[in-house]
């Protein structure tokens, strides 16, 4: 269309644009200065993966289109793609209105049709969103005025666009050769007299003014996510999800973790600007679901609000002078200790916010700076320090589980192919010792040459790191790495996902890289290669699979256990739908919670048993691949008195190998 900005109009529009964009850039600059208050962190490596993420997560809206949000996600994707197309048109309107310049192809039939289609689709999606806010009111959603203002502005933009196009066509202001937008002109409205041009010009001005008001409002609002998601996805962590950030040169530091906004990295602070308060993380959090004080969304927003509150004051003075930043005002320590680090929040977040890193950084500050750790967690840490295991069992009994099995140690058989890293749970916990014996039976049946470290093994450090004692994790990790080096260990198999995760994903941070497998992965290969014959004969079982967080969401190991269960004769596998695979529900024991009491709300493992009992086809067993899950499932089944037997996948397999007596000896 030809812009109605003859005479002074162009100047007025230029002035409005200067105001709107000026406000946008001024506020954006302030926000940028605030996040620079955070500590430095290099997030530029892995450029290829960053570009791929940008295409898939930002442009492709991949994380929005996830169970159980597919339809709502599609509505968002329509608004987003519409926004991209219409923004191009908006640039054309502003340029032509101010300077008479045009964006290339803005008059083409294809573009006109596209804008037209999206304008209607966006309007429909916004009406759906308004309806949900006003009438459905999903409990996870933080419903505030901001959301209505944004939806109102978008509706006004779309309506004014459709009106000025309709009236514009009637007034004959189409540029030469321009196609008439079919949907906008679907209703052939008749405008008496010269009113068509007046309506056109009025709606046009309303449209462009709204665009500029929107630009000015944007950085004051959570809607800023349309801008910040772009860098937030680009700079997302490219560490393996299961790996926490390393505190380098820890002995030379004076402060650890995050006690204030200055201690978080700039990317952690950018996360705050990017949160759009959708509440998907809260929706999936097992702690929140069972009545704990933790809400992952609140942690992110607390950081943002404190940054916005303090940012101006802190940015005005240098780090050395001026008043120091305040301690966390809104986030309470009991919120931080309630986290199981299950990563359901990370999985759910459409804009790749990193909740666990913030929580663990805040825990680090409590654990290392303040020595402020819940008493039970402190006991676990002291036990790791003194006895090399969180239960405080005598370290010289570590290999007692293997009595009578004649499992060789690396000291005896240094030529062994695999180190079986048993872990503390399978070494000391009675129930899990049976799993270790099953692993031995299975690996033996397949002829795998493996050995253990015996009493030379010590805790891998995972609980310490997740409770926030990075120093103790590094001490434990270095100790184990020294032992591995002494025996020339190259391949490691672990039956505990926590051992597996920290050795595979975190030991490389200390320069120690091995080929690390969870035992399910190794056995899956052995079965596929025909090295492990499983015989039928044991009773028929319906087995539900429970995804351990540190196998599933943290390491993407969903198929190995399922393939294995499908390969076991006499086993029918069922899912604990809808809480399976990516949406698996935590057992409650991750993140050091195994050693902390759970006094508030419902126990997480009891909720898990309720989910298990709610599935259509009743399971006789529930299988897992994690010692902590097994302990929690056993406790839950016992407390609820349900007739389901918790097992480890390895136990099901061991019962069907040629020499099962080893497993039960």
């Amino acid at each position, binding site marked *: 269309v030809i812009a109605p900005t003859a005479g002074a109009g162009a100047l007025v529009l230029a002035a409005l644009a200067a105001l709107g964009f000026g406000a946008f850039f001024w506020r954006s600059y302030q926000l940028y200065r605030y996040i620079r208050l955070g500590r430095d962190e290099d997030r530029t490596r892995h450029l290829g993966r960053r570009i791929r993420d940008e295409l898939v997560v930002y442009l492709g809206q991949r994380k929005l289109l996830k169970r159980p949000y597919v339809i709502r996600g599609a509505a968002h994707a329509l608004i987003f793609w519409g926004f991209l197309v219409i923004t191009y048109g908006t640039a054309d309107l502003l340029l032509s209105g101010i300077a008479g310049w045009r964006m290339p192809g803005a008059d083409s039939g294809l573009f006109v049709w596209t804008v037209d289609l999206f304008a209607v689709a966006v309007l429909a999606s916004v009406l759906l969103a308004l309806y949900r806010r006003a009438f459905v009111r999903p409990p996870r959603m933080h419903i505030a005025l901001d959301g209505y203002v944004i939806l109102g502005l978008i509706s006004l933009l779309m309506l004014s666009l459709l009106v000025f196009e309709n009236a514009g066509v009637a007034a004959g202001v189409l540029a030469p050769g321009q196609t008439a937008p079919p949907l906008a002109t679907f209703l052939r409205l008749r405008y008496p007299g010269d009113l068509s041009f007046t309506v056109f010009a009025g709606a046009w001005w309303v449209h462009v003014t709204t665009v500029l008001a929107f630009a000015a409002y944007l950085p004051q609002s959570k809607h800023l996510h349309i801008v910040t998601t772009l860098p937030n996805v680009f700079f997302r962590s490219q560490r393996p999800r299961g790996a926490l950030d390393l505190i380098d040169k820890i002995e030379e530091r004076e402060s650890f973790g995050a006690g204030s906004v200055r201690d978080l990295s700039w990317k952690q602070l950018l996360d705050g600007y990017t949160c759009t308060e959708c509440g998907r993380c809260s929706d999936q959090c097992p702690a929140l679901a069972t009545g704990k004080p933790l809400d992952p969304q609140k942690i992110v927003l607390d950081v943002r609000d404190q940054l916005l509150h303090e940012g101006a004051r802190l940015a005005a003075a240098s780090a050395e002078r001026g008043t120091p930043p305040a301690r966390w005002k809104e986030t309470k320590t009991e919120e931080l200790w309630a986290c199981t680090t299950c990563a359901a929040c990370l999985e759910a977040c459409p804009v790749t916010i990193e909740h666990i890193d913030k929580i663990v950084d805040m825990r680090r500050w409590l654990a290392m700076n303040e020595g402020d750790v819940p008493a039970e967690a402190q006991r676990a840490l002291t036990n790791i320090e003194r006895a090399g295991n969180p239960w*405080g069992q005598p370290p010289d009994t570590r290999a007692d589980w293997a009595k009578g099995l004649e499992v060789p140690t690396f000291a005896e058989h240094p030529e062994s192919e695999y180190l079986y890293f048993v872990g503390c749970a399978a070494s000391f916990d009675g129930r899990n010792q049976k799993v270790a014996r099953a692993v031995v039976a299975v690996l033996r049946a397949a002829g795998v040459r493996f050995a253990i470290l015996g009493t030379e093994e010590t805790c891998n450090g995972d609980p310490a790191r997740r409770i926030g004692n990075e120093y103790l994790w590094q001490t434990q990790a270095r100790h184990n790495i020294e032992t591995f080096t002494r025996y020339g260990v190259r391949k490691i198999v672990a039956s505990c996902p926590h051992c597996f995760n920290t050795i595979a994903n975190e030991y490389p941070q200390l320069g120690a890289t091995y080929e690390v497998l969870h035992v399910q992965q190794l056995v899956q290969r052995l079965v596929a290669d025909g090295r492990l014959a499983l015989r039928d004969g044991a009773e028929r079982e319906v087995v539900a699979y429970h995804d351990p967080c540190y196998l599933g969401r943290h390491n993407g190991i969903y198929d190995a256990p399922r393939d294995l269960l499908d390969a076991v004769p006499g086993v029918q596998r069922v899912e604990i739908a809808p809480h399976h695979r990516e949406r698996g529900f935590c057992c409650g024991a991750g993140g050091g919670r195994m050693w902390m009491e759970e006094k508030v709300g419902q126990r997480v493992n009891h909720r898990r048993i309720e989910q298990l009992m709610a599935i259509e086809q009743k399971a006789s067993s529930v299988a897992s691949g994690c010692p902590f899950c097994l302990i929690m499932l056993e406790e839950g089944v016992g407390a609820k008195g349900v007739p389901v037997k918790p097992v480890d996948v390895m136990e099901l397999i061991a019962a069907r190998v040629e020499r099962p007596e080893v497993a039960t000896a």
Partner: protein
Amino acid sequence: VKILVCIKQTPDSTVRVKVGSDGRSIDAAGVTWAISAYDEYAVELALEHKDRDKESTVTVVSLGPTRSRDSLRQALAMGADDAVLITGGSAESLPPLAVARALAKVVEEAKPDLVLCGRQASDDEQGFVGPALAEVLGWPHVPTVTKFAAADGGLDAWKEIEGGHEVWRASGPVVLTVQKSEKEPRYPSLPGIMKAKKKEIPEKEPASLGIDLAAPVIEIVKMEPPPARGAGKIIKDGDAKAAAAQLAKLLRDEAKVL
């Protein structure tokens, strides 16, 4: 308030101790050492007071082999201000009364207002040194203390008794032997650990203290582990009634507890 805490290093509670080849002492190989449990409560109780009254200072003293320095460092990391180690020479074989005399020398030098000890060490469980130290010093002694606070012209100590507490008031310096702290012994902060690593710990030899090292000695003649527990018995046969009858029979005839 100037507080002095005496601590002893003993095998950590997670260690499964073994009798040494002489049959009269424990095998020290592979043992993890820690502050004796009641002594750790004493350190915590002192630090809890320091938390409330920033003017207070806490000094820790240990007597034993040089590895005891690690336990002093642990107490420093928890928040104690300084430490003294009495070691070398006859330190490892001093009779308990001579230990009390040696500690008394340090107390006389440091002039604290208050001395805390654990109520007994978790290795020999004798509970001798604390009261003996009070005797050597000529100070009063309150045992099984769980709390103390400054009071009018002195100090109140809460002494645990069956089913309750007695509050004792000391007007001058006093030795308290500690039963428990108000909170669990604190977890040292990492900056605390780093600072403790750099602190100087002066050492003294018992012979240089000018005390009488001779004292009556009791001797350990023999050490033996508790007998290994036999396997449990599971009564499987029959209904509840029959099983109960069988259990009663076993408890009477075999276990001889009925």
